[in-house]
């Protein structure tokens, strides 16, 4: 009997799996029991992920742990690979999950069948995708994650969800088949599925098979870019996310990051094979196009969830563009940004529903028309006395303002710091020849998209919080505002602890790239 710590790497998969199974075996009638199990499992997962974070934080950045399933020798066995990057991602999943389940505890967990099971199994899929070191196993966990997300997207039912859900399913199934094609081609050429082994065998691939290998990798890349919602294959995302129930949408905030994560892994692993050539330019220009489209969509949307959906695109585009640099400092700050933007987006998805309560549905349209035509009613003198905002609205307002500043990258919050570090890093990443025009364009895009984000959220915020309305003050429960405080608190903590956090990230990135070089 060995210590459970030896199996720490697989626990983020096994814990939610076990919880999911137990939840399946409990009848839907026992909603409270199911919820309690769900929450306990999520807390346990959080403990496990913090242990992982601590474990890989103590060593140097290149510390990895390979877990061979079935105890088979390495290229044969399916492996799980734990390192700093996967630990960060798993921890992010755990925190998100804790917030989402807390929010759902108010009422959403009763919104349909098997919510708790699907929730835990989604966590299993996410963690599996972050931990696996095997290309086909990655496909399996993608499927676990996607299957659970189909269910969660449809959770709560309603026409909009079913329509968006079916689009989502159709698109993602198509993307998954590309994934499968890509895996098959790569396996056919290299004869192996272990990612590290693939990278190691690349130099031995015979010349006449190289183009097949590249085609396979390209198909894989497209599959991941589709999941990461790069323009022009990411139109599914805003509609799907906007239609999902808030706790599901908030959890989905990390799903588009899975695509980014895998691309990062693969680009690092295959970096030695000179895959930088066309692949990296695609990432850069695709990322920039995604930022543009996300920004445009953000401005043109009127309801908050949809806006946030486009915010996901901007975030994805930013990350994709950052990946294209293949520079440790850029990657480190990009991962920092990934964490911040995921938490912010999740927070906004949750907030959007709270703000919607007790409001007339047509008020959003009014926001723009008021701006267009003004309402220059003469202000009565007596009105020039401030009105006190009820405490609920004040709390929501502060949360919204913080989220807006985080998403727009306005100082002094960590969103600003993240953007600054990315920009400083890309400007600094050029060697000798000076900073390329595309880098300046990217920097400009990031700044402009930040401004546009501010503009859009400003409009929403003023309309939501400042325009006196007949609507009632929304009823918000502590378990619903709690996760928002948790996410914002994490963002603030990452600002205060930016120096150690960045030291962690930089070691991580250097470890990643050192592996690929060595």
């Amino acid at each position, binding site marked *: 009997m060995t210590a459970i710590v030896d199996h720490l790497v697989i626990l983020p998969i096994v814990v939610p799996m076990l919880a999911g199974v137990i939840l399946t075996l409990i009848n839907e009638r026992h909603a409270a029991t199911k919820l309690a199990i769900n929450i306990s499992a999520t807390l346990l997962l959080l403990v496990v992920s913090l242990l992982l974070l601590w474990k890989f934080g103590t060593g140097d950045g290149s510390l990895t742990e390979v877990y061979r399933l079935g105890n088979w020798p390495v290229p044969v066995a399916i492996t799980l690979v734990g390192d700093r990057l996967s630990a960060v991602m798993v921890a992010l999943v755990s925190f998100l999950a804790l917030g989402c389940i807390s929010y759902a505890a108010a009422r959403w967990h009763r919104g349909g069948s098997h919510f708790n099971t699907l929730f835990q199994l989604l966590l299993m899929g996410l963690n599996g995708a972050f931990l696996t070191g095997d290309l086909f196993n990655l496909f399996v966990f993608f499927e676990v994650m996607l299957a659970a997300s189909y269910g969660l997207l449809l959770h709560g*039912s309603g026409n909009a969800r079913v329509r968006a859900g079916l689009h989502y399913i159709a698109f993602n199934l198509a993307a998954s088949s590309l994934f499968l094609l890509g895996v098959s081609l790569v396996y056919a050429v290299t004869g192996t599925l272990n990612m590290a082994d693939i990278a190691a065998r690349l130099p031995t691939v015979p010349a006449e*098979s190289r183009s097949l290998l590249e*085609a396979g990798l390209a198909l894989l890349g497209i599959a991941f870019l589709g999941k990461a919602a790069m323009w022009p294959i990411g139109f599914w995302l805003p509609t799907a996310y906007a239609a999902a129930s808030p706790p599901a949408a908030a959890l989905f905030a990390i799903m588009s990051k899975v695509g980014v994560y895998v691309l990062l892994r693969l680009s690092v692993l295959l970096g030695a094979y000179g895959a930088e050539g066309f692949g990296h330019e695609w990432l850069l220009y695709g990322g920039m196009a995604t930022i543009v489209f996300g920004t445009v969509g953000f401005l043109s949307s009127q309801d908050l969830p949809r806006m946030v959906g486009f915010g996901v695109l901007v975030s994805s585009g930013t990350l994709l563009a950052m990946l294209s640099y293949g520079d440790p400092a850029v990657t480190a700050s990009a991962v920092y940004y990934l964490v911040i933007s995921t938490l912010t987006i999740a927070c906004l998805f949750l907030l959007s529903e709270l703000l919607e309560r007790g409001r007339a549905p047509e008020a959003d349209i009014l926001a723009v028309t008021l701006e267009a035509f003004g309402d220059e009613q003469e202000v009565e003198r007596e009105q020039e006395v401030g009105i006190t905002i009820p405490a609920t609205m004040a709390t929501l307002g502060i949360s919204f303002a913080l989220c807006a500043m985080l998403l727009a990258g306005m100082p*002094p919050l960590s969103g600003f710091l993240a953007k600054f570090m990315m920009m400083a890093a890309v400007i600094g990443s050029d060697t000798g020849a000076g900073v390329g025009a595309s880098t300046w364009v990217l920097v400009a895009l990031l700044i402009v998209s930040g401004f546009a984000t501010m503009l859009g959220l400003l409009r929403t915020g003023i309309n939501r919080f400042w325009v006196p309305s007949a609507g009632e003050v929304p009823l918000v429960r502590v378990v619903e505002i709690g996760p928002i405080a948790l996410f914002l608190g994490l963002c603030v903590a990452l600002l205060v602890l930016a120096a150690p956090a960045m030291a962690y990230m930089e070691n991580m990135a250097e470890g990643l790239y050192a592996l690929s070089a060595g």
Partner: protein
Amino acid sequence: MAFPARPPGQRLPLKLPEVTAILQGSATIVWLPVGQTSTVCGTMSGVALLPFIILLPFIGALAIWLLPARARSSASLLAGAVAVALTASCLWLYGSVADGTVLRNELTWLPQFGLNLVARMDGLSWLFATMIAGIGGLIVLYAHYYMSPKDSMPRFLAFLLAFKGAMLGIVLSGNLIQIVAFWELTSVFSFLLIGYWHHTSAARDGARMALVITGAGGFALFGGMLLLGHIVGSYDLDVVLAAGDKVRSDPLYTPTLLLILLAAFTKSAQFPFQFWLPRAMAAPTPVSAYLHSATMVKAGVFLLTVFWPVLAGTSTWFWIVTYVGLATLLLGAYSAIFQQDMKGLLAYSTVSHLGLITTLLGMNSQLALVAAVFHIVNHATFKASLFMAAGIIDHEAGTRDIRKLSGLYRYMPATATLAIVASAAMAGVPLLNGFLSKEMFFGETALRNPIPFVDVSLPAVAIVASLFAVTYSLRFVHGVFFGPPPTELDRVPHEPPALMRRPIEILVLICLLVGIIPGLTIGPFLATAVKSVLGPDMPYYSLSVWHGFNWALAMSLVALAGGVILFLLLQKYLARGIEAPPFIGHIVGPRIFERLLILLSVRWAKAAERLLGTRRLQPQLVLLVAVATLAAAIPTLGGIGLLPLPPTTFDPGLALVWVVGMTCAVGAAVQAKYHRLVALMLLGGAGLATSITFVWYSAPDLALTQLLVEVVTTILILLGLRWLPQRLETSEIDPFRRFSLHRLRDLALATIAGGGIALLSYAVMTRDAPDGIARFLLENAYTEGGGRNVVNVILVDFRAFDTFGEITVLGIVALATYALLRRFRPAADSIPRPEQQRVQSAFESQRDDHKEGTILSEFLYVPSVLMRWLFPVIVTFAAFLLLRGHDLPGGGFIAGITLAIGFILQYLAGGTRWTEERLRILPVYWIGTGLLLALVTGAASWLFGYPFLTTSFQYVDVPVLGRVPVASALLFDIGVFILVVGATVLMLIAIAHQSLRSAKRDAQPPGKTAPMIEREKA
């Protein structure tokens, strides 16, 4: 100064020692991360105080914000205490910066990104900090009396203090990025202050406009600072200030300059961004007084002043800054004359004075810079006092409209006197501070310039604008304080509380003292401030009141006299009470801005979203396939190596199967849109061809799996088809008549993509397999995995973790399907009984020997009896497949599907009710149990110290059967089996129960679905 060249490839080349070298002679504390020694150079005195000055207002703001809304006096007291502490600290620090020392307190934070937290103070920032702290204190005192008892004083003062902290942060920051951070913070807090009375639309609009414009400037500043930091190689302000030549000669100088100017101009309300400032007067008057005097707008000119040594001195700088300033100066002064609102007049006057300061900064002259700094201080004093006076009048008289006000001198002589003196300073009347700096301005503009345009325009605009300033000052004084008693007021105005007037008295006193004895009052402070910008070799300037007759004095006199004359001339026009200034009144800046914003951020954004994106599924899938095809084509277009010809011994039988299969596939695609049933059946044909191919090439496991999966999915889809809408009308079903361009495009894309994949597969399959893991699997399946069926050993042992994941997927899909369909209610048009049943019923009702429903109940009677009898056989067969799986074709998955088919047959034969009355199936528990078994089997290996899913096998002597191999993988396989049965049956039930529901619904009118949210709302 000589500057080390930037070595290539180094991120931020300046390391700490070099920075310290640049800073020699300054008082510095450098805090390094824990564990390293901290470097202290220079004098310590006061340096430690700097971060405190920045942080204190924020701490105070937080404390005040936490007070209850009614805690008016304690809030004011706390804010006042903070202000006093700040002002005292600033005053005390003067001794440290007076000799030109730069105080620095540096906290190492993110040195790898050049971002350290630096609190820094030199003469200029001392002057600004003192002004911000001091006037801020006066504002708190004033606001205590100004704000209504019903206003939430803590909230107001918290915003005000936080805003003050942000302003102090700008002037006391020693890092470019830190400046950007505080810069945006001032925008945010000024937004909150301007929108304090947010229930009025004026406040909302004003606040939003202020934030959009100054916020945009902040983003521009961010870009500018990034560029500047990149050029210099450091974000440290002192390093940047020492690198002026390097910056000006860099090719990126112009974009850098433009971005920073954009920031400064938006903040300081320079043309064409001037319009937000008058709108911002929707703020409570104390806020206006603060924003317009010492803060906010002064941040812009502060920025220009600080970076003057780095950015100024080029012709680009001269032309842009000077002429933007001049335009603002003139426009502001002109507009101010015609305002009817006191605060509006003062706001435009602020715009104009900032234009004056900007013009001075743009002239690339050291003397002009001195004048600019001097005027910044002077303007702050008289403008703050004027706004406060306007607020008192507003408070006491109930209106700010000059048309309604008149003769207030007799009611409030003290306030009137103060306001008159301050107005005189604003007009530039001698013996007041405004006169002195304006004289310096005139002196600078009067200097001869070789360019004729500049030579004429500078002094001309200066005189005209100053003349306007005299006019609007006169108008303010005359319109409000003189003339007959007011008639349109609803109350009798009187003097405010003495303490409310105190701030004005102090400021007016400063105006007078500076105006009369400048050398003794402002002189040394100004010198210190200017020295920190210009360095030790300052130009000579004199601050005395009388310089003899010169151009400047002449211009002053002309402006004064001209202003009086213009005022007299305009009397009649102004009496008409027209709101907008003549000639330019119809150009309303805010309105243009709003329109532009809507156009850009809404209309064009919508158009662009439509152009660049789509919400429809089909184009999205087309794009996905197109992009994927392109991505795969790019590397393969150069050739994919040798493609061997097909073997000549190709079996014609298999070829026939393939032809049939391909025909089926193409047929399915053609029919997919028009006839789902046909398409589905054809798809089944294609699947069958695949199965046969697997058999042909000796892959029995694959063939079995493929066959069974085909059967089950086809049946499930068939059951689902019942609930889809009817097929399209006959006129539309001929696919060949209705082919359009986009169908042709889709066909082409499908052909290319499909052909490409076929080609790739062919290339892969005709090539020698690489020496990979496959050999290991084949060689070790029996010895290590204990099974002769390699496929099964791979599934349950080598790659059991994949299977583990896949069965989870299957379980999830079943659960999700169930969850979806549980809430699903058939659409109205699929609720009636199907056409076939209706035909039968009609037939039966015509015949006497048939009861209605007989045909239906007797439908497939013989087969259904057979199906019932077959059930035990199928169960046994499934068990057989399961147990033999490890060595021969079979296994948990195949067995599970087989058993599921058995269940499906029962449903088909007996109907849902009949079956469920006899068979109690709880598929959700089957799913859970199956997964649990797999999980427990996997985790059991932990007990023996092995990783998850490690298997073991050995031979066991079983009494009857003898020695049989038992692998732990069998348990896992049983888990798979149970799960597959459960998942398939759950999906079956989910679909089958639709008919039960719709049958119930036949009686009711078809209602719409009732999703959770709608129901809850109801």
